[in-house]
Each structure stands twice: as C-alpha cells, then as structure tokens.
C-alpha cells in the first residue's frame, strides 16, 4: 500500500493551497482528486472577488483572514504568476434599508481595519461609475477589493505544490476511510493508501467525506446561482466591482470586471439545487437586475451563462456559523467543510492554517527549501511586439494562433497539455481558449486534434469536461 504523511481529499482551490502549504514542512503530501483534473468544482464557478473584509463579524477567524489575505494578495499572485486586478468595489444602496446595511458594514470594516474604506454620497459614486442607474442613495467604496481568475489561482497553487514534491493523484475518488494504528487508510477507486494525517477539502462533498468516519456535525445544504458573462468588446462597462445591496433580502446582484476583460453578472439565488444547470428564471433575474442597475449596459453582448453551487454549511445542533467551519473530529484529521465566500480570497490563508495544524500534530520539521515561486504558461497576448517577435522567432509554435478570439497560440496549448490538461476545458482553464466571443466554435476542433496527438489517443477519446463528455464519436480515419 502507498504510504504518505498527509493526504488531501479534493483538488479544488482549498486542496491545492493546503498541499502547497503542507510542502512548507518535511512531509510527503498527496492530493487525491476524484476528477481528471483539479479545480473543476466550486472553484471553477464563483464570483471571483478578492474581498476587502468588511462583511464579517469582527474578531472572527473569517474577518481576520480576509483582511490579511487581501493585503497579501498582490504578493501571492506575483509568487504564483497569476493576474490580479485590484479594481476596488462599490457596494450600492438605493434605499433606506440598504443604507443601514452599508452603514453597518462600514463600521464593521473600520473595526476589521479594512484599508481605505469610505462611505460615498451618490454624487461621489456617480463620478466613479457614471453608468449607475439614477436614484442611488449611498455607496460603500473599498479600494482594496479585487478580482482574480479562481481556477488559474488554484491550478497555480497545485503546480507549485507538485514542484515542491507533492503528489497529485487524479481519478482517485475517496470512497471510504478507516482509522488504523498511526493514521488512516483511504480506499479509492484506484487502490488504497495509508496516510498519517488527512485534510478533507472535498467541497460540496466535504460533509459526507467526514461522515465516512465520524458522526455528522456540519451538513451542507447547497443552493445555486446563475451568472451571465459579457464579451470584452461590450462598452461602456463599469470599471469596479459593483455590489447592489437589495432593499429586500436575497435580491442583490454583483458585477465583476474580470481579469480577462469580460464582465460577469450574477448570481441569482435559488434553493435546493444539486446540479450545475442554469434556470430560465435565474437567468432572467440576472438580466432584469443588471438592466435595473446599469440601464445602458449592452446585454446583447452575452457570450456565456453558467451556474454555481454554494456549499452552505449548517450545524447539526442548529447553532449559528459565523466564521469558517473548520472541523477537527480526531487527531490529524481536519475538515474544511462548506467553505463558501470568501473561500477563494482566503485559500492561501486557509491552506496555511490547516497545514500548520496538521504539521504540528504530525511533529513535522519545517522545510527550509520550500520554493514559493511558480511560472505561468507564457502567454503571447500580453507581450509587446518586439518581445512577441523574439519569442515566435525562437519557438515557431508561438506564431500559430489557435484561438483567434483570445489570441492563444499552439505553443500555449501544448504547454497546457504538458502541464496536465486532458480535456478541452482543461486547456481552456489553463490558457483561456474558447473563453471569447465565439465560445470555442472555431478553435475546439484544433484543440481536440492537438490533445489527441499529444496524448496519443483517437480524437473520439478526448472529453470536453470529465467523464462521458467525448465531443466526437469517431472518425472515418480511426479504422484506417
């Protein structure tokens, strides 16, 4: 049986950051991920905001971590070579109820020491964002808010963990856990594994993973939300994150100018949903509220819609959860259960927190040769003409444009495959192919062909995204 020190169940952003941080100790570390790739769950579909930290009850771990994570985010993104946009945010009130909420958040933010926080008059807010609908009361301005591409950040953390010696076991769904002498045995669909310690980062399944061994303490009650994405050609668009604070509960809307240059709108709020399917009512809610908040926004520029699932944690004893629900049901067993917003913001903090606890319990020594740096796939799009010319001269594949909407070349796609992409969406997550206005209708065929060629399989074996999602069924040439 394979033996390791620390097993991480789940390769979402939290699992990847836990792995990265566990490598700061002299431990053998492995991520066990059920899917064929990392960051395909909640970490793929969320609002992508790096929160400033005024939303949380002062004194909680959540409040403290969010403010610290935000302050450190630029450095983190430099270490991991991931784009980060500190665009600032405006929380918007159009009524008296919402004014009170903003006032409360403002005071809370001051207590949490959120930098630069200001309550703005409507006039001041219109100067910053002239597109806002008339009738604004007040706005809470947080210059430290930002946005990051969540799956890029998670993939970067995973690559950095592997670079520091962590193992990544894909297609290894954990099906049962047994307590044995000195640790745990994890049964997976591809064989068992012994680990001295476990960090459960299984996202929507984190409660059921913990219940493989322990009695329930926190349950996850998922809700769903729908989003729309507008093409980067749409203009004008707001340049900051907008959070429309509703007068009635549950009818808010967030607008995010993403690092890719597109505009994301959402989410709607729906109950008791269990799959990543959008609904008509959810999508029309987002349209309607977007139009209400930004009457001049060109909603004909929609290029994509998607749904997200919130892993809402609820204590089985009915007590309220004010902070992150981090469970420690037994020695060297930690669970990050139902980590929703701001789990992306705090991924590094949470990963470090869990690792430090586990490392202490396992009596591990610090690993002084830990290397925090990771290089992203070289993208041509951000280069100057001269830089790009030199690169194309040295590496001819950089001259061949594969995705014409997002300007991604063959060299980038090949590098993504080399780094672990096995599906069309895996390439998309690593390079941005298919994210643009034609949504892959012109490059998908080239990408499936490249995947097939490099992986040495027929094109009919190339999935779009996960199991049983093959794009073509066969080719007349397969049998030749």
């Amino acid at each position, binding site marked *: 049986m394979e033996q390791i020190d620390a097993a991480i169940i789940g390769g979402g952003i939290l699992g990847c950051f836990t792995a990265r941080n566990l490598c700061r100790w002299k431990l053998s570390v492995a991520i066990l991920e059920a899917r064929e790739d990392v960051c395909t769950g909640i970490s793929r579909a969320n609002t992508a905001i790096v929160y400033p930290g005024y939303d949380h009850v002062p004194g909680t771990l959540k409040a403290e971590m969010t403010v610290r994570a935000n302050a450190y985010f630029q450095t983190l993104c430099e270490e991991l070579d991931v784009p980060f946009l500190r665009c600032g945010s405006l929380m918007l009130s159009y009524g008296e109820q919402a004014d009170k909420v903003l006032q409360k958040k403002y005071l809370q933010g001051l207590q949490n020491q959120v930098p630069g926080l200001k309550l703005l008059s409507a006039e001041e807010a219109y100067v910053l964002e002239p597109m806002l609908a008339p009738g604004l009361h007040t706005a809470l301005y947080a210059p430290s808010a930002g946005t990051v591409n969540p799956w890029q950040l998670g993939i970067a953390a995973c690559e950095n963990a592997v670079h520091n010696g962590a193992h990544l076991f894909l297609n290894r769904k954990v099906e049962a856990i047994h307590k044995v002498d000195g640790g745990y045995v994890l049964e997976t669909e591809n064989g068992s594994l012994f680990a001295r310690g476990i960090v459960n980062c299984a996202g929507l399944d984190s409660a059921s993973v913990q219940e493989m061994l322990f009695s329930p303490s926190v349950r996850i009650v998922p809700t769903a939300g729908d989003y729309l994405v507008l093409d980067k050609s749409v203009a004008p668009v707001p340049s900051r994150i907008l959070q429309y604070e509703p007068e009635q509960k549950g009818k808010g809307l967030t607008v995010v100018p993403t690092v890719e240059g597109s505009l994301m709108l959402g989410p709607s709020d729906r109950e008791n949903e269990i799959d990543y*399917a959008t609904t008509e009512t959810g999508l029309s809610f987002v349209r309607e509220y977007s139009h209400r908040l930004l009457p001049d926004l060109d909603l004909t520029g929609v290029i994509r819609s998607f749904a997200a699932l919130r892993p809402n944690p609820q204590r089985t004893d009915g007590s309220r959860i004010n902070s992150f629900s981090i469970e420690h049901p037994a020695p060297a067993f930690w669970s990050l259960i139902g980590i929703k917003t701001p789990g992306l913001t705090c991924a590094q903090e949470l990963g470090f927190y869990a690792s430090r606890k586990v490392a202490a319990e396992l009596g591990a020594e610090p690993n002084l040769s830990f290397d925090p740096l990771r290089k992203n796939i070289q993208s041509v799009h951000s280069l100057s003409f001269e830089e790009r010319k030199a690169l194309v001269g040295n590496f001819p594949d950089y*001259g061949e444009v594969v995705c014409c909407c997002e300007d991604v070349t063959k060299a980038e796609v090949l590098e993504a495959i080399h780094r672990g992409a096995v599906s069309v969406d895996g390439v998309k997550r690593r390079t941005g192919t298919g994210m643009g206005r*034609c949504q892959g209708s012109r490059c998908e*065929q080239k990408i499936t062909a490249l995947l097939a060629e490099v992986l040495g399989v027929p*094109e009919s074996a190339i999935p779009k995204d996960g199991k049983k999602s093959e794009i073509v*069924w066969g080719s007349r040439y397969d049998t030749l």
Partner: protein
Amino acid sequence: MIHCELLVVGAGAAGISAAVSAWKAGCHSILLADRAVQPGGILPQCLHEGFGIATFGKELTGPEYAAKLSESLQRTDILYYPETEVLSIAHEKTAVISRRGALDQVGFEKLLLATGSREKTIGALPIAGTRPAGIFTAGQAQERINLLHQDLGQNILILGSGDLGMIIARRFTLEGKHVIAVLEQNAHYSGMARNYHRCIEACRIPIRFRTTVTEVHGTGRICGVTIRNLETGEREQIPCDTLIIAVGLIPERELVRGLGDPDWLYSVGNCRQIYDIVDSAVAEAEQITRKALSL
C-alpha cells in the same frame, strides 16, 4: 516591416475576388492573408451544390467554386499568405501578422477587410440548463463532418431553419443519422426555398415552427432538451445526443473595432453584410475594390 499597397485580410470568396480584381486593375503590390490552410473561406466545407449560378451559369459545389477562385489567384503574382493570423490593425496603416515562426508588421496604403462572419453560439441565446458535450454550431459541425470526417452523434436536433440549418440537416441525414427535427421560432423557414425543397422536403426532415429550445439537459453528453411552443407556451422534453445551433451569422469586424471609419478601410463580403449568395458577395467585392483603388 513588410510593405504593400493593398492588404487584403481574409481569403474567402470576397477576399480573393477583391484581390484578383485589384490586381487586374493594375495594383501589383498586394498581400492577401488568411488564417486557414486552404483558400476559399467557408466554401471548402460547403460540399453541397448551389454556388455560382449567376457567375458561371451552373451550380457548383463549394470546393469547386473555391477551386475556380484559387485558379484565378494563381494567375496573378499576389503575395498570398495562408495560415497567417492578422492580429491587429492600427491607425498608422500598419497591421501585425503572425505565422508559424514569424511575427511581422505590414505597412499598407489601403486595406480590404474580408474577414467573413462568425456564428452565433448557444452562449448568446437565452437557453438555460447545462453545457455538456454534443452542442455544435452548424458551421463547426460542417467542418468536422465534411473536412475532418468525424462522427458527431446519432440523434440530432437542429435549432434554426436558415440555410445553414437546413443544409446541415440534410448532411446528417446523408450520413445515416437521425435528424429528429429542425426547430424554427418563426412560422416560416428562414432560408432559401431551394434549400427547403432540397433538404427538408427531399429528406423528409420534420420541421417544427414557432418552437424554440429553452433548456439543455445532460451532464457529460447532452441527453435532451426542453422545447417550447411559442404559440401555446407548451413545453416538451425531447431526447437527443447532439444539438446543432444554426441561428445566424454575425459579421466579423473585431479587427477594426475602435478604428472608426478611416478613408483607407473598405469592407467586402460577409464582414460587410451577410450574403446568402456567393455571387453577390463577389460582385459587390469587385465593385468596392474598384472604388477603393480609384480614390
């Protein structure tokens, strides 16, 4: 830096005929660039007949028409760069082009934009549900079937009864696939009568008017859709393993977005307006080229 008098972006029917007519009119410094391997734009993937009735007096297939264009191109000394992406165009009358192993700046006097069109995708439609594998645009399906010889699925539903939708419906039928239906939101098919008779009637493909897709079902592969009758509001679930989106073309003008309307820029072919008939696209492209050169 490469210099030319006339830069033509796109070697589809419009781009080639514009370049060739400019050549004939005495402009001998022309660069014609296209991202595709072969010339002709969308023509090589249109295996059906129906091209060139006005110009050649008979019905050619897309590849035959493309071959004629390509012959006319070969009779000139136009510098033709296939597999070349035009990345950007600047006010200074320069463009950046990228090819395998080379990135270049091109200086020009006049520019003919002949970049064709792109298809509307499912992302732009108000269709809820999941986004599994098995959803293709009509042109993408056409390329995969006709040029890459791939098998895309067995039970096919087609959204949109324009020429693209009707032609791909027949294509699937000829491939031995089961086309469940063509769905059309209007009360009448939206393509040409000729295609309705040859594709829908001749292949006995069911067509359902005043009907649209509201939701996609399936994880992994698509397993069905919900459709809605726009008259009665009635909904129905239809199982399918492939959904073809054939809801129209959008002129591809991203390269010149933000340039305004400079006097050196001319647009021909589908990037100017969507042409149903290649002959009209070609005829107008030639006219516009003459105008461009006499300036």
